[in-house]
């Protein structure tokens, strides 16, 4: 197959970039999207041109390193990450636009590589259960209803790739934050810190410059892990309650 690529190239530290036109010729239809980029990069190297930088690692859709916007869609068309996208899904001769994630809070490092450390900082602001490794009680001492565990797992499946924020017209990270708040807040082990957690994480999210949710649900549409946007509603409720409690009770 042949493709006409328009790939975002940006020098490190420049803050500005442009689309480079590249022809991807004789690409096997069974190649994955990233393997297509490998082929393009090999040819660039052979021609003495610097290859395109892009983040990738596990190539099986779980590590969350992928951060490409393909034809305007974060992680590309279809469910799943860019590494799980195969070239046979495109038409022969098609023009494909490849850009980094476009969110102010994820500055471009180089070409298609962005800096997503804002997500790590949000987790650091409360996305955990404060417990100490040592003598935790027996794992079966506290029963967790199957429905609760399953629902928590729906949220915990988030791979932290950032597609949600990249897809949101407001550049909002609400789905990411809500997934962690939901996952831990649903489980009995996460309840003692639930108020503190949601307030801390939301404050950090705001500080990082992410926008707010205005119910476009673009995040849910692109989420490779299928995290439901309903968790955002749950987080809003948790946040409102936690803030109210904090205003009236010193203990919350």
């Amino acid at each position: 197959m042949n493709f006409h690529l328009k790939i975002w190239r940006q020098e490190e530290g420049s803050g500005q970039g442009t689309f480079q036109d590249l022809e991807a010729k004789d690409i096997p239809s069974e190649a994955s999207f990233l393997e297509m980029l490998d082929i393009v990069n090999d040819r660039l190297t052979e021609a003495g041109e610097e290859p395109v930088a892009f983040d990738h690692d596990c190539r099986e859709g779980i590590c969350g390193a992928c951060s490409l916007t393909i034809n305007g869609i974060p992680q590309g068309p279809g469910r799943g990450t860019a590494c799980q996208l195969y070239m046979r899904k495109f038409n022969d001769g098609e023009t494909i636009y490849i850009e980094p994630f476009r969110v102010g809070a994820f500055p471009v490092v180089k070409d298609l590589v962005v800096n997503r450390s804002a997500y790590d900082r949000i987790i650091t602001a409360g996305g955990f259960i404060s417990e100490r490794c040592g003598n935790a009680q027996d794992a079966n001492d506290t029963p967790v209803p199957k429905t609760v565990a399953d629902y928590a797992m729906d949220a915990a499946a988030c791979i932290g790739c950032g597609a949600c924020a990249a897809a949101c017209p407001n550049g909002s990270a609400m789905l990411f934050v809500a997934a962690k708040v939901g996952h831990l807040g649903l489980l009995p082990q996460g309840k003692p810190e639930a108020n503190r957690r949601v307030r801390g994480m939301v404050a950090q999210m705001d500080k990082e410059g992410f926008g707010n949710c205005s119910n476009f649900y673009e995040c849910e549409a692109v989420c490779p892990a299928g995290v439901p946007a309903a968790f955002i509603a749950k987080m809003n409720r948790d946040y409102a309650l936690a803030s109210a409690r904090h205003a009236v009770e010193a203990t919350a």
Partner: protein
Amino acid sequence: MSTITLDPKVPAGPLADKWTNFKTASKLVSPANKRRYELIVVGTGLAGGSAAAVFGEQGYNVKCFCYQDSPRRAHSIAAQGGINAAKNYQNDGDSVDRLFMDTIKGGDFRSREANVYRLAQVSGRIIDQCVAQGVPFAREYGGMLANRSFGGAQVSRTFYARGQTGQQLLLGVYSELSHQISAGTVKMHPRHEMLDLVLVDGHAKGIVTRNMVTGEIESHSADAVILATGGYGNAFYLSTNAMGCNVTATYRAYRRGALFANPCFTQIHPTCIPVSGEYQSKLTLMSESLRNDGRVWVPKRKEDCGKKPSDIPEEDRDYFLERKYPSYGNLAPRDISSRSAKEVCDEGRGVGPGGLGVYMDFADAIKRLGENTVRERYGNLFEMYENITGENAYRTPMRIYPAVHYTMGGLWVDYELQSNIPGLFVIGEANFSDHGANRLGASALMQGLADGYFVLPYTIGNYLAPLRGTRPETARPEFKQAEEEVRERIKRLLSIKGTRTVDSFHKEIGKLLWDECGMARSKEGLEKAIRRFDEIREEFWTTVRVLGDGDELNQSLEKAGRVADFIEFGQLMCEDALDRNESCGGHFRVEYQTPEGEALRNDEDYFYVSAWKHTGDGKRPELVKEPLHYEGVKLATRSYK
């Protein structure tokens, strides 16, 4: 004979008491003194992330490094199946002893007995810890934890979180690590790659890293260095590992004097989606559970290989696993299934592109159970298969082929998980001790977390306590020299400006290892490979083309350094395979098999750990042996007929 004697430091006493005895006798660092120490942890997978978090909780100052942009992306995240623990929640007769026995037998009697026993002892605690930190394991309706069975065991002791157990365990570790980062005890350095180990007066006291964004070469000193840098499966180029997984950290430590143990013990997983072309960058695993209902076959005649599977009548099909292993059939263990698939493909009876594949056919299961039941059991896997191959496995058989998955070998460590270099500790897949010659399913996650949460935090005290936080400054000449060597190497890689891409070398050594040091190995082939590696190394350092600069994000440069190490390391794997004149676990030497073609172990001559010492560039490494001693286990032959 070697000048080094390896002391595994296995504590005295009966097997079941060794760990308690050790803990009672081990030295402690008082809470007030802990803050005087600095520890370096390289790698943030299950082992490294958990160790860093626990050290932070205990009050040590931790500097933690990973090559990924976030500690949450370490490749532990990709583990699907589950984690073993001897909880006996199912009341099916499980116990520490049984988990220990299964693991040691699964390893084909080449692991260190006392380490494996300890692993089984701490396994239950791991589950408690994970639940406490919010890992949403699968539950039963009553709210209790659910279990499933895995290969090599007759009990249900595997805990799981859908098909994403590794992800959930790693995110648990990451959250605990994040807690410590927020507490200020752990300082995280993502996008940093360790390029050398620094020794001061014979002790590991620091590392040299490259900041992968700015290219800056930095020195970091500490009281001890902990490597948790995973396995070396990517030496084969194609594997189920992540693209960035590499051997550089452990190999650089090896070059500085750490011994590398059993490098030839690699695990080839039988059910992966086959290679479809030259461009392919990685192999995707299809869960082993498919073999419960899938029948594995190839055409009896070479001429039929090009035909559509539906055009090949029943009598022209060879269900080779059922034929060779009638009692285990399609559920024969990993090493045997993998080798059998290779044999039929070598005979020219493989199917699919390049003839490297065998069919896994669900037609009988669909006829017997109905398509819906098959969909309920394996729907997500069939979907994944279709996404990758474009084929509908409900209509046509899947094509599968073995792929490199895990490496049992690693840096040599004693019972304290300390290498032969004082102050250098190695945990998780990066060390060698617990899986012998073959790892059982759901045991890698168990070992990573055991090492990081429950073993190293206790064993490191003996080394640290007498030091009182007296680490050297990075201004010392040892650091400056190591930095200089790293810079020099990078400069050299960038200045060759040759004609071949890094990937072309990686593919070449991958194929060489796969052919000669893969599922079947021979003296002749290994000797040939060892010679060929010398030539490849020469070619690499004269013809490789690495573009760009060293002082920026440069993915070709990163890869070039890793592949250069894989070239040297691949040779070491072959040396190890050549020395081991027996077949055991993942190591199958064609000269050593029974008349029926089964692995022939030689306990008389090879009941030892092969630990290799670097002796200089271009020189053969030196073999140091750690003889194995078993107290609780009788050696036996595995049979699956």
